[in-house]
């Protein structure tokens, strides 16, 4: 029973972890809390539902949705981040919130406010390991999350573009002076964040077989919490934080009931912020501890 709860928590946490990675990328590199992420997450989930309903194969739908996520996030960079120079420090935050309102209402116009049910192209989706039931899409999702983050970690540490990204995280102005094409690297960071967000949206809609225009908000708040718990700007921290939030959430439901979830999760967030604001792993992309 306990093992089952732990597995459920980890599976839920893997979705939070992907969203947290998307948040932590823009946060760690640009010091920018990107509120368009819940919007892109939701669009990804809704498009997965719409494409499966339209009879598309998953092999077509998933790459298409990931591409859409990258493009949307690139658009957000154009309209929010580029405009920030010389402006108030809160401007990109406000603009990205406007994106969230925009995307949510476009989805409402296109698909209505009902919660949609996904029809999966495959049958039974769970496997038994001993007494524990594991959802196969969830397991694939978790493995995928770790694999993608591992790849990202390698890219950040070992490649030329990774070094450029880390130099911007350290000091964008100095990076520009030293010849880093900041205006070309930053859109790339946004596009990668968009892919992570879209992947999380796809996995969420497949795992829980549902999608709605409001699906992004709750998950994004948990994703932000996961980012802080793990340590802002630390991508492995985001994974750890996401899994921790998932486990705490399922544990709170199991022992105290559904109404205790928010007290437990956000109480933990407050405790971390007051006691250890750098998070569990301590985040600093610039120092190569990504």
């Amino acid at each position, binding site marked *: 029973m306990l093992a089952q709860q732990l597995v459920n928590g980890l599976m839920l946490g893997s979705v939070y972890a992907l969203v947290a990675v998307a948040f932590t990328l823009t946060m760690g590199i640009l010091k920018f809390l990107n509120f368009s992420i819940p919007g892109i997450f939701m669009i990804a989930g809704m498009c997965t539902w719409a494409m499966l309903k339209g009879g598309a194969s998953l092999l077509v739908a998933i790459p298409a949705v990931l591409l859409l996520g990258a493009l949307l996030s690139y658009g957000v960079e154009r309209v929010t981040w580029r405009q920030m120079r010389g402006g108030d420090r809160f401007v990109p935050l406000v603009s990205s919130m406007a994106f969230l309102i925009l995307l949510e209402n476009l989805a409402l116009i296109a698909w209505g406010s009902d919660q949609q049910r996904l029809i999966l192209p495959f049958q039974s989706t769970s496997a038994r390991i001993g007494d524990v039931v594991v959802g196969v899409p969830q397991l694939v999702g978790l493995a995928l999350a770790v694999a993608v983050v591992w790849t990202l970690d390698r890219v950040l540490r070992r490649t030329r573009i990774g070094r450029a990204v880390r130099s911007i995280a350290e000091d964008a102005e100095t990076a520009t002076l030293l010849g880093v094409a900041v205006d070309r690297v930053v859109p790339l960071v946004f596009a990668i964040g968009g892919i992570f967000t879209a992947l999380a949206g796809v996995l969420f809609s497949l795992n829980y077989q549902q999608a709605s225009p409001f699906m992004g908000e709750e998950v994004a708040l948990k994703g*932000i919490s996961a980012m802080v718990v793990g340590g802002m700007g630390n991508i492995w921290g985001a994974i750890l934080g996401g899994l921790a939030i998932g486990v705490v959430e399922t544990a709170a439901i199991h022992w105290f009931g559904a109404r205790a979830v928010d007290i437990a999760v956000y109480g933990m967030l407050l405790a971390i912020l007051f006691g250890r604001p750098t998070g569990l792993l301590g985040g600093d992309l610039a120092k190569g501890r990504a």
Partner: protein
Amino acid sequence: MSGYLEGVLVVLAINVILAYAAFLPIVAGQLNLGIAGFMATGAYLSAYLTNAHGWLPLPAALAATILTAALGLVVAFPILRTRGIYLALATFAFGQVVVATILNLDAVGGAAGYPVATHLGFPAIAAAAAIVFVTLYCLFHTRFGLSVTAVSDDELVADQMGLSVRGLQTAAFTIGAGVAGLAGALQAHHFNYIEAQHFNVLLSIYVVLYVLLGGTQTIYGPLLGAAVFTLLPEVLRGSAQWRYVIFAALILALMTWRPQGVVTRGLLRRLVEWRRPSPAEAA
């Protein structure tokens, strides 16, 4: 006055009060995303005092304002230890915890919501909004307002000039909390029903948007921001769902063209100079 117009004006008055609740902390350099939490505190305190202890709505709202400010003072100490985005996230987490706690309090109805017996009409709420505006206007034009602006412009220099940065930030945060509590109390007594789910993080975000859209440099910014945010969706109501799309596009456009907010010190100065002919013309 028609019922519809009065309804819109009540929401406008409450939103103006909320905007000033977020304004003072923002001027002091704190992005408070926990406004909804303080608003919920004020709403439930005032409702509880009238329902369970038979208080009249006005004294109850006043008491709720003071008690919410006291709560703000207490949480200001741990929260102001954090800075920048950490502070925004700490206030966000605080707001979530407050709402989640109320959801678990069966004495005030929990998730079912809480009916409020006593009613406050539009005149009382409009008067409260006017009092809040005048109070903040006066406060903003005293040494305190000047000091808070100095802290937001450059904390280090303000500190070196002998200002108590921590004290000013605590005061701004506490006053903001109290004003948010007042807005909550008024909302509770006007609509006669409150539910914890209403006071979510999106509400806090919208309030911050009022202020940033209006502009943080002058006392008029939050007033204009709250008015635009409240009235524009009403004006656009004709186009049903598209109104929020248009609304979001307008925010994006405004943030691109006027990143400092609509009302800035420079704009006010130009307005004054435009009304007054220059000495050369007068001669």
